[in-house]
């Protein structure tokens, strides 16, 4: 039903039951807010969105108040603007004065609000809360001093991830966001996904900085610095440089990385092809083994930690295949030196990931061989952008280049790993070949694409049907796990990604580039797939070469020692 409301002396139409804020936004009136989040119920905490409603004593939060017929609203009256401004000033009175040094300088919602509301004078002064930085996590740094207690991180962690690592602690102006017993994040149930960073309006949460060590390596002439970047980085980095959203700029990334001084540059999608082949064969080897059904992907390090903490009984079902990043890392330190004539001891291996949990994954004990870790440093898409800027590279002027050889070829199936469902789709494409049938009958699996929480597909090979499920976001995993535990699960393979949408929406991706950004990133990945001639992992000639000359057959002993791992229960305060 449509009702009429009066806004700033103009009559506009609104849907009955919708909030004032939503009606205003359809009418082109922007109302500032700190705590509200799309798809979440409003908490009414920040009070920035207040408007004046005739007949009401105080100001009314537009985020939670539904419209009613002939409501008379003033959105920018002096009283409203003064209130909003005072609220921002109050926040600033308890905020560190170090914008210039802040991670989020130039991309901070509080800074923008202060600017928009024309805060030009420090009117309100007082004591500020003192906190220490929490550096304990390999992925995420917390700076409670910059926290404005909007609660978005708590809600994402709880409602989208089902992790509950953090909550509000204490009361009143002593409130802070903390873990159970205020322990450091590393001792908590945090799965390092970084979604909290994505929603943080200020610099209270950011990734652990790995740039200094990479710079050191780059400056060290003894080191051969090799870099790989994940499939979804190529389609998201453009946003950081004002290039058209959703454009695949892998070629430019290759060029930029080379200019920075990386000695070798690879696309992680190449290793994703290996992962597809390994997992397809792992799946085949398990078919018929009722005890080991389903096979669950272990490529998402956030999901892996989630399982280690809450569902250790599920770990035997986890695919032993490492993630593409770690596979490539392992190959770069084992096979690659021999091929390219580099001394293995000098290799410094960097990965660019759309993800903060990848920093954690690289540090796992299981991911080292003879004391050498597969990957030495992981940076996020955001950090890569910083690095490019630091080296003064103008992304708009350089010409695209190709990745290094060998390992420079990848199938588009490997590229699909960047989106939720992409891994499953890639495995389905290669499963017939692995099973001895020659060609896949079908390439596109539309049912595995899109934003639903659980997606399903199946493929028939000979007389056997393989059922695939894709879990798109951690909170949807919990139901499925309960089904598995109850013995009600009929799937053969399950892909689980902690972040909704997959790696394209990872916690290391550009912040504040808009709702549309994730969609365009996905579109770009599928666009690459459409144009690609090699669309199945097993058809990648370079991995064929690698298997033939080094690894042997998929799931061979060599593969197992290099490309596979195992997980065990992790004790944290749940």
């Amino acid at each position, binding site marked *: 039903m449509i009702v009429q409301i009066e806004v700033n002396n103009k009559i506009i139409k609104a849907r009955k039951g919708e909030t004032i804020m939503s009606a205003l936004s359809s009418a082109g009136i922007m109302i500032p807010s700190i705590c509200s989040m799309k798809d979440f119920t409003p908490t009414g905490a920040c009070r920035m969105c207040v408007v004046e409603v005739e007949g009401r004593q105080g100001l009314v939060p537009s985020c939670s108040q539904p419209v009613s017929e002939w409501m008379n609203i003033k959105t920018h009256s002096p009283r409203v603007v003064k209130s909003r401004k005072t609220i921002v000033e109050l926040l600033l009175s308890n905020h560190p004065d170090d914008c210039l040094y802040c991670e989020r300088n130039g991309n901070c919602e509080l800074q923008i609000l202060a600017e928009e509301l024309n805060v030009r004078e420090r009117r309100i002064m007082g004591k500020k809360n003192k906190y220490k930085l929490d550096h304990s996590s390999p992925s995420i740094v917390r700076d409670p001093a910059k926290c404005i207690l909007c609660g978005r991180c708590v809600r994402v962690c709880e409602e989208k991830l089902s992790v*509950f690592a953090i909550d*509000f*602690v204490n009361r009143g102006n002593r409130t802070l966001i*903390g873990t*159970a*017993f205020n322990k450091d994040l590393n001792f908590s*149930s945090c799965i390092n996904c970084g979604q909290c960073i994505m929603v943080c309006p200020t610099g209270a949460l950011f990734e652990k900085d790995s740039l200094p060590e990479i710079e050191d390596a780059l400056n060290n002439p003894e080191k051969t610095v090799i870099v790989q970047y994940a499939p979804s980085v190529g389609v998201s980095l453009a946003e950081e440089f004002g290039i058209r959203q959703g454009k695949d700029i892998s070629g430019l990334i290759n060029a930029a990385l080379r200019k920075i001084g990386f000695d070798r540059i690879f696309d992680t999608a190449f290793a994703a092809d290996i992962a597809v082949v390994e997992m397809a064969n792992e799946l085949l080897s398990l078919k018929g083994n009722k005890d080991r059904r389903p096979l669950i992907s272990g490529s998402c390090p956030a999901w892996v930690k989630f399982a280690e903490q809450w569902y250790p009984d599920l770990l035997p079902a986890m695919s032993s295949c490492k993630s593409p990043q770690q596979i490539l890392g392992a190959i770069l330190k084992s096979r690659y030196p021999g091929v390219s004539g580099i001394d293995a001891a000098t290799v410094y291996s960097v990965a660019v990931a759309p993800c903060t949990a990848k920093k954690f994954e690289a540090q796992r004990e299981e991911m080292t061989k003879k004391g050498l870790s597969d990957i030495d440093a992981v940076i996020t898409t955001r950090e890569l952008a910083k690095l490019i800027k630091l080296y003064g590279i103008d992304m708009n002027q350089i010409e695209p280049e190709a990745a290094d050889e060998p390992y420079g070829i990848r199938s588009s199936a490997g590229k699909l790993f960047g989106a939720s469902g992409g891994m499953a789709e890639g495995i389905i494409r290669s499963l017939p070949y692995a099973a001895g049938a020659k060609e896949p009958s079908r390439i596109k699996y539309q049912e595995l694409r899109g934003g639903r929480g659980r997606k399903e597909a199946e493929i028939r090979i000979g007389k056997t049907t393989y059922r695939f499920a894709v879990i798109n976001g951690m909170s949807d995993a919990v139901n499925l796990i309960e089904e598995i535990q109850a013995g009600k699960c009929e799937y053969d393979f399950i892909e689980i990604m902690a972040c909704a949408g997959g790696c394209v929406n990872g916690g290391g991706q550009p912040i504040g580039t808009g709702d549309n950004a994730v969609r365009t990133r996905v579109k770009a990945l599928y666009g690459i797939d459409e144009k690609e001639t090699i669309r199945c992992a097993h058809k990648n000639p370079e991995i064929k070469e690698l298997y033939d000359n080094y690894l042997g057959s998929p799931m061979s002993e060599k593969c197992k020692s290099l490309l596979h791992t195992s997980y065990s229960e992790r004790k944290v*305060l749940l």
Partner: protein
Amino acid sequence: MDDQTSVILSRYPRGHRDCLIPILQDIQQEYGYLSESSVTEISRYLGLPSSKIFGLATFYNQFRFEPRGRFHIRICHGTSCHVSSASEIIKELGKKLRIAPGEISRDGMFSLELVACMGACHLAPLMQVNDNYHTKLDSGSINDIIDSYIEGED
């Protein structure tokens, strides 16, 4: 699992979050404070993450995460007590015991708690030490009272 904890938990249905506060109250009644291990037990019993339990417990005045002193002092800071110089008494007490409200003395003898109003305004200012009330305090009497507890323990 601690026996007493499981006895307390068994009085409540599993997985019911609305029982959290009563459970915490019982646990604190039993042990004097909430330990990490009891929070973990409760978390498992209710299927509620410990971060949520900690977040809740730190919200309320009642819950504490370290044991009480052998003498737990609750000092009233209601309006009437305030206009009768309770702030001075609180300061004096802090000096004497060398602890701030919410803390416990190093020897574990005294712990101090500020109470909003004990509802005996005609006897302001007042405090409660374990089960004893001390009323119409002044900075002189407060010292004597504390000394008497210290002597009593020797």
